[in-house]
């Protein structure tokens, strides 16, 4: 046995590999990305970045039908994209074990909504396991593959961002040597080998896999039977402690006794799972806990028995009252959302404050402490120095267009200092939204859809096809930086290589647009500000769908781009601030002043020489370092 400090997502990958996963498919999405990034490093696993989450789900499902153990992973929004096959696959069931990792983002560190993903389990009847730390991630993922085959159903491993992105210790392998000391490292999989897992014979069973009414009606009844058996399994494993755990209170008195603010003490019980369990345990270690491992279906009789051992029962869960409502419906009295917020990440302090408000005597949580000094200048993420999105963003601002964005780094231009994007909604959305906006009459100075290469290929193509078919006058800007940048530089069909490093044919985005029937397709160098302006004007004037495609790669991925830096000739700078509109992190105010305004300086260490600031500089004070006045 060995012990490693692992990210929750790394532990999921390790568990899946040990369970014999052969096919892993996903579209990158925070906080789920690292699961498949890591699986790609393991011996004997075929891992791919699929074009979108629905495609990924279907690839994994097909692999299961074909007899292999398969995994797909996604963020909340990805589950919405993949909802169709997600729900259908629970009817059909599986051949090889199929595990669906769904990582939610309460608090919206990078998600567009904080939807409660557990309802995907409810709507589909897919069994759900919810790990609380990396050890759980490792064990539950291994178990999920077995359950999937045992009950003929895909199994969801439901993660919260806290679980996916925390690091904690994982004991790997069998406990033969009585437990080993932790060693640093993330359990690097390079060099690990496993024998090829046995492949089941591929399924060719029409009535199992064809969701025509005559097949799907009996399949639904069969599903309800499987849910019954799963409920029995949930009760039995909760009883043995395998998948649910009763923990007596840590206090001196034990038995969950907690002092009350009004005097006296009472026995407190907490029902919780996943990240919320960890926060509740930190907030109130003296309470008795029922930690759930399986949250769909619920071991309601075990919960009922636990409830009978305490005076007050609390349900601690992030977002919606998913558990609370089911307990109440089962006639189990409990308190939950009355004390704990229904929004945001449920940190220990927010749980602790809830317990305090509920009357418990908790000095640690008596004071509502601020986490940070709100008076300090905010430091939001910004477009990188040399980012190829900056030229077009600045040009669109100059023309004062209504800008409909999609999902990508360019969304940062909704924020200061660029502040010129007016919607950022969901993947592929910008293209049809702009068509509807135009059909409603558009706006005076014109409007435009902005989308990236990865998102265009994810779900933008069908939207553009719609514009061609409807003959809608619309302008689409594809900010093609040839990588899926925002999630950390994953490959997409525009690249020459796949996730596994294999050579492949990069797709020609301009050719796709032309093939769809778009008449005006123009490629633009986004480092050429005047060319950006000209192209935008031409696109706006075109009577029909028009597409502009930028031609510079991401400056961060796959490799950081460096170039010859520019410098400011301080004598020529008249502090007009034109260059500062770019919001470039390498531009800052110099100590020198012109009248009441600061002159500008360039950080030569980070400047990549994109030259946009020099193009905007009216007095011509910004020049290449070697030919500069210095």
């Amino acid at each position, binding site marked *: 046995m060995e012990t490693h400090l692992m990210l929750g997502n790394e532990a999921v990958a390790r568990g899946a590999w040990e369970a014999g996963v052969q096919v892993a498919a996903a579209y990158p999405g925070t906080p789920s990305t690292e699961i498949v990034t890591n699986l790609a490093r393991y011996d004997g696993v075929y891992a791919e970045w699929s074009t979108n989450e629905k495609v990924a789900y279907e690839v994994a499902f097909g692999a299961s039908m074909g007899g292999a153990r398969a995994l797909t992973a996604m963020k909340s929004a990805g589950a919405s994209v993949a909802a169709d096959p997600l729900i259908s696959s629970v009817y059909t069931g599986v051949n090889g074990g199929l595990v669906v990792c769904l990582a939610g983002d309460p608090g919206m560190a990078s998600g567009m909504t904080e939807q409660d993903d557990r309802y995907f389990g409810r709507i589909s009847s897919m069994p759900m396991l919810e790990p609380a730390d990396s050890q759980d991630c490792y064990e539950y993922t291994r178990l999920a593959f077995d359950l999937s085959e045992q009950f003929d159903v895909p199994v969801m491993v439901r993660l919260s961002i806290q679980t996916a992105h925390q690091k904690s210790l994982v004991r790997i392998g069998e406990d033969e040597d009585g437990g080993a000391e932790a060693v640093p490292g993330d359990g690097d999989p390079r060099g690990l080998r496993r024998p090829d897992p046995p492949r089941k014979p591929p399924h060719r069973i029409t009535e199992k896999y064809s969701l025509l009414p005559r097949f799907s009606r009996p399949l639904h009844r069969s599903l309800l039977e499987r849910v019954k058996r799963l409920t029995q399994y949930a009760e039995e494993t909760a009883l043995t402690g395998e998948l649910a755990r009763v923990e007596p209170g840590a206090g001196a008195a034990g038995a969950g006794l907690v002092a009350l603010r009004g005097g006296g003490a009472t026995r407190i019980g907490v029902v919780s799972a996943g990240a919320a369990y960890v926060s509740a345990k930190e907030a109130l270690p003296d309470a008795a806990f029922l930690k759930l491992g399986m949250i769909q279906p619920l071991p309601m009789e075990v919960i009922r028995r636990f409830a009978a051992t305490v005076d007050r029962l609390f349900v601690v869960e992030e977002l919606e009252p998913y558990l609370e409502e089911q307990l109440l419906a089962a006639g189990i009295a409990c308190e939950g959302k009355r004390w704990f917020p229904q929004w945001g990440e449920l940190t220990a302090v927010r749980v602790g404050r809830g317990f305090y408000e509920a009357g418990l005597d908790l000095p640690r949580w008596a004071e509502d402490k601020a986490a940070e000094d709100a008076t300090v200048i905010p430091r939001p993420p*910004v477009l990188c120095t040399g980012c190829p999105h900056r030229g077009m963003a600045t040009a669109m601002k100059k023309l004062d267009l209504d800008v409909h964005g999609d999902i990508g780094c360019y969304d940062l231009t909704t924020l200061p200092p660029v502040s010129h994007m007016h919607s950022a909604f969901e993947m592929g959305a910008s293209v049809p939204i702009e068509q509807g906006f135009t059909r409603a009459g558009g706006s005076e100075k014109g409007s435009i859809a902005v989308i990236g290469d990865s998102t265009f290929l994810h779900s933008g193509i069908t939207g553009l096809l719609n514009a061609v078919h409807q003959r809608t006058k619309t302008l689409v800007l594809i900010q093609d930086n040839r990588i899926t940048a925002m999630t950390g530089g994953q490959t997409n069909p525009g690249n020459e290589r796949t996730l596994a490093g294999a050579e492949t044919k990069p797709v020609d985005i301009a050719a796709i647009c032309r093939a769809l029937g778009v008449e005006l397709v123009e490629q633009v160098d986004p480092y050429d500000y005047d060319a950006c302006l000209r192209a935008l004007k031409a696109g706006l004037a075109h009577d029909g769908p028009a597409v502009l495609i930028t031609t510079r790669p991401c400056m961060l991925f796959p490799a950081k781009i460096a170039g010859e830096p520019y410098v400011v000739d301080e004598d020529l700078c008249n502090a007009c601030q034109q260059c500062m509109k770019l919001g470039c992190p390498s531009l800052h105010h110099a100590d020198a002043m012109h009248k009441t305004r600061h002159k500008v300086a360039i950080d030569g260490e980070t400047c990549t020489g994109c030259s946009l600031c020099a193009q905007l500089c009216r007095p011509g004070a910004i020049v290449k370092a070697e030919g500069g006045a210095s």
Partner: protein
Amino acid sequence: MSATYPTGVAPENACALHYAPGVVDDIMVVGVGGQGVIVAAAVIADVALLNGGLEVKLSETRGMSQRGGSVSSHIRIGKQVVAPSISPGEVDYLLAFEAAEGLRAAPALTPDGVAIVNTQQIVPPLASQGEHAYPFDAAARMKAAGHDVVVVDGNAVALEVGDLKVAGIVLVGALSTHLPFAVETWQQAIARNVPKAWYELNLTAFAAGREVGAR
């Protein structure tokens, strides 16, 4: 919980004594994306693991940390640790790679917590828009608020030993004087987290950091 173990005086059994049941060191590293906060956090986590007998939990900034935004890393060390992130007002040691980020995180400190603050100032592009002013007096403001602040010119020390790139390890060296781990263990932790070619220079930077950190 605060304790000071200046250069060379950490006893053999310092850790066993220090990490009594229930004692958890809450360490927060803050800075700007790209400054090396993640590497520093990895070194701190690894020193506790290499020491042995301790549980370590870690959580890091979520979102787009590579795009010049604020970043922070929480490291919790003890015999037993529950939550991976530190609750507000409970940070024992704040290691700030950038001065304004130190000021931002200062309310997270426990009343007897220690802040080690780099003098480096990175003015965000927003400051040029005039709506917000950059706090050039960040360390002074932290002191005025009653915090125990150790100011370290990490960049100057790093340049002195040979390269700006090792400034992060200078700061880790300053922090190390407050934690009960042996210098040799720190050196092993550094070896695990920096490229081989940079190891010697990082050791020099670490030693220099210990000198400034010990006050």
